[in-house]
């Protein structure tokens, strides 16, 4: 709870700092504040938490683990922001404040114990993101991204809310425990309840960018400032899956036979659409957008094969995916600044000029592709393990085919960096970037070699 309060207070402080033009204090205050928030969250570990506020919130280990991951990723992304926002607009304090407001929404999303809190959390997060997507006020693509995201987002929130209402209508409660009891107690569940579950699936799939509700993703990811894209594709996606998993494992697990086929179809479509479209991209940023869709497909495995290990699988997969994406986007920002293009060609010959950047990006790509000794492999391994234990052999075979396809586009950037040449000057790498990229690459390898550090958490 303290974490949430702190994360809600920091942005207000930041806005005041912005008002008094203390620009240099913004980043340190944010980062230190978030580190304290992280510490507060970790301090609550294994405390035997009970639902608080009449069963509105529950800060159990699940919530703490996901809060920890999302806060840490946000810190890494914010560290990359030094000098980045200044170039885009004058209102820097607002950036930090809105990102943190969004993070507050995310903490609610991973800690809710009542459907109203889920809705409020998603809304706090989304409204902040609509603004962030459009924050380059004079940029056409950014405006388009914001408008598209807002319209589609509002639409999907409508679905989600409608679903919640139907569930309330049939079960008589917003509380997760009561809903679960309703599902367990009743032989004949109200058809409206089923409709509600279906609508919630639609709403949540939109938020995590799963096909066929993914159409906003590429345009919004491409149009938004790259750092915001990094935030959306890592922190927001992780939170979306945590919320998804919490709802389904707490409430809907007993009626799995109803929604598993639907999610199975969604996961398969997501994998194919994400991977095959990513093959044809010329822009690295757009490729990452489609790859993020395909990773949503893998993450859905954990919900399809719902079990004791699901939370763990999502945690590992989301962490692996987030840190690898942060490296990818961080490198992209640097390369983009130099060549003014986010095409694959911009990466040509990077290894000769910046061996460090090329190395960390290679590690990130190998991790995203799921090659052993990187965190991404451990994530995929857990997902495949879970899916096979539920006898979803065909799903895993489809996933394998997709993993093979994904090699083509992940290796494309490795090939560009190492085996092609281009006449360009060295990319300047600021110290902050060196730290974040190096740290993330190290974590990727460490988790890849010794995943127990993370996998025994929940």
């Amino acid at each position, binding site marked *: 709870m303290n974490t949430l309060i702190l994360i809600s207070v920091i942005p207000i402080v930041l806005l005041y700092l912005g008002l008094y033009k203390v620009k240099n204090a913004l980043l340190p205050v944010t980062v230190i504040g978030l580190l304290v928030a992280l510490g507060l969250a970790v301090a609550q570990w294994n405390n035997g938490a009970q639902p608080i506020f009449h069963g509105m919130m529950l800060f159990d280990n699940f919530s703490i683990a996901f809060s920890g991951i999302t806060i840490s990723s946000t810190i890494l992304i914010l560290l990359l922001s030094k000098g980045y926002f200044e170039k885009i607009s004058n209102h820097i304090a607002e950036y930090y404040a809105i990102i943190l407001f969004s993070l507050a929404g995310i903490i609610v999303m991973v800690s809710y114990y009542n459907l109203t809190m889920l809705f409020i959390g998603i809304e706090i997060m989304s409204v902040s993101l609509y603004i962030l997507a459009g924050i380059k006020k004079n940029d056409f693509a950014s405006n388009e991204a914001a408008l598209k995201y807002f319209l589609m987002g509002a639409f999907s929130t409508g679905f989600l809310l409608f679903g919640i209402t139907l569930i309330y209508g049939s079960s008589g409660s917003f509380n997760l425990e009561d809903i679960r009891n309703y599902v367990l107690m009743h032989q004949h569940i109200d058809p409206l309840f089923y409709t509600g579950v279906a609508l919630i699936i639609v709403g949540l799939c939109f938020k995590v960018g799963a096909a066929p509700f993914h159409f906003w993703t590429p345009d919004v990811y491409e149009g938004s400032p790259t750092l915001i894209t990094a935030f959306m594709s890592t922190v927001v996606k992780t939170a979306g899956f945590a919320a998804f998993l919490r709802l389904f494992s707490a409430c809907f697990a007993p009626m799995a036979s109803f929604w598993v086929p639907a999610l199975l179809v969604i996961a398969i479509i997501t994998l194919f659409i994400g991977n095959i479209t990513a093959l044809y991209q010329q822009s690295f940023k757009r490729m990452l957008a489609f790859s993020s869709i395909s990773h949503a497909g893998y993450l859905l495995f954990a919900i399809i094969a719902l079990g004791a290990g699901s939370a763990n699988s999502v945690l590992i997969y989301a962490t692996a995916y987030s840190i690898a994406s942060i490296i990818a986007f961080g490198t992209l920002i640097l390369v983009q600044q130099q060549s003014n293009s986010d095409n694959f060609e911009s990466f040509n010959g990077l290894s000769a000029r910046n061996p460090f950047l090329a190395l960390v990006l290679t590690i990130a790509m*190998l991790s995203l592709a799921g*090659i*052993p*000794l990187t965190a991404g*492999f451990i994530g995929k*391994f857990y997902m*495949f*393990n879970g899916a*096979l*234990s539920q006898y979803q*052999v065909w799903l*895993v*075979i489809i996933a*394998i085919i997709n*993993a*093979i396809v994904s*090699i*083509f586009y992940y*290796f494309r950037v490795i*090939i560009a960096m*190492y*085996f*092609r040449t281009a006449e360009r000057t060295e990319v300047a790498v600021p110290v902050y970037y060196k730290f974040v990229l190096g740290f993330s690459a190290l974590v990727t390898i460490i988790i890849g070699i*010794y*995943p*127990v550090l993370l*996998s*025994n958490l929940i």
Partner: protein
Amino acid sequence: MTVSILLFLPVVAALAVLAFKNEAAKHAALFFAVVEFAIALTFLSRFIPDATTQFAIDLPWIPKLGVYFNAGIDGISMMMVLLTTVLVPIIILTTYQHQYKNAPVFYALILFMQAGLLVVFTALDGFLFYVGWEAALIPIYFICALWGGENRIRITIKFFIYTFAGSLFMLLGIIYLYLQTPGKTYDLHQFYNLSLDVHRQTLVFWAFFLAFAIKLPVFPFHTWQPDTYTEAPSGGTMMLSGIMLKMGIYGVIRWLIPNAPLGFLSSQWIVILLAIIGVVYASIIAFKQTDGKRLAAYSSIAHVGLIAAGIFAWNTQGLQGAMIQMLSHGINIVGIFFIWDIIIRRLNTRDINQLGGIAKVAPQFAIAFLIIVLGTIALPLTNGFIGEFLLLNGIFIANIWLAAIAGLSIIFGAVYMLRMYKNVMQGETNALTATFTDIHGSEKLALGIICVLIIGIGVYPQPLLHLSQASVSNLIQTVTAKIYESGIITK
């Protein structure tokens, strides 16, 4: 003393080599590879050639999922460890005349790959095996793609996708077996104890087979191989052909057949047939080659096809033949590729028709070349003979007609190899080959070691055969017992 020293030293060495500058990196890499070989020899001296697993290490890795760092050496693994640790120093020695750009990275990748290979050859845990399998693939991909020839980008990605695809299906098979074990573990011996029905075993068999067949490669999964061998830098080609393809053969012996004996039984003849088609097909294509490296690549497919057929015949002769032939083939093919490396470096061509008469200007080179060619075509008193004889013997026990066809491979091999030797070394010296200088320094040393090994093993193979004998017969008994147990075949 546990196998962990053997597995971790190359990793440490790979990191250490990065700290050296270009020329020094060569020497450092060679030093570490020789130390690794010395360690392997001390293991060998303490090794008791019975069927037990020795020097074992078993540490918890991801205990919740039943993953343990479980590795050990038995007779079969010992042969593979010897193969790897003997060949890596020789391969590093053969690269001494090259000036590779970023040499420290090149040698670090070779040493890292050695670690991956040794993990594969000693792993007793499915997860560890898979990790080693991929850990060997990544470095060789970068070796081929960074230091390869003109078409390297297209060809190496094809190679990578092929092998990665196969290994993912193997991962599927491994996880599937894991889920069937009562205690939910990746322990190989628990896998051995499973008794699944024929249908499931067949699925497991093909999932594993795909990975191994691509690695070997068995016809029709071989299409990546000639291109990759041709385009890769010579050091990479030697690592691939000398050691890496043995991962596939070893996988068949250790992970494929004992894990799915009934699946093996139902698919045995399909695989033997594919292997023998591969032998004949590759030999015929080898006839037509004028490119020396490609010829060697196809000859490798033919030889490996014979090994695969011998293994799938599944008797002591065939399996023992496979064990010794793996070692011999590794030595011989490294020799052949080194010969071509020397020719290419001096004359800048691989076209057999442009060469001729080198024997006159380089007699020492000619002798070494001849010994290697004779080893490859399995002349008695060379190492190739022992292996091919036992393999054919094994196939003969299984089926006499197939043995007859497979036996053709020796004749074919003699024809294309001797023809290659004749065209390159004998005849009139032309303007190009007159410039050929005889071997010296590190070249002489590397070729000398290879020739000594070829003749040494050929004359007195008994210690090596003895090394794997007990493990091989034990493995065959285990599988036979499992097959009888299922009741499909009665005694």
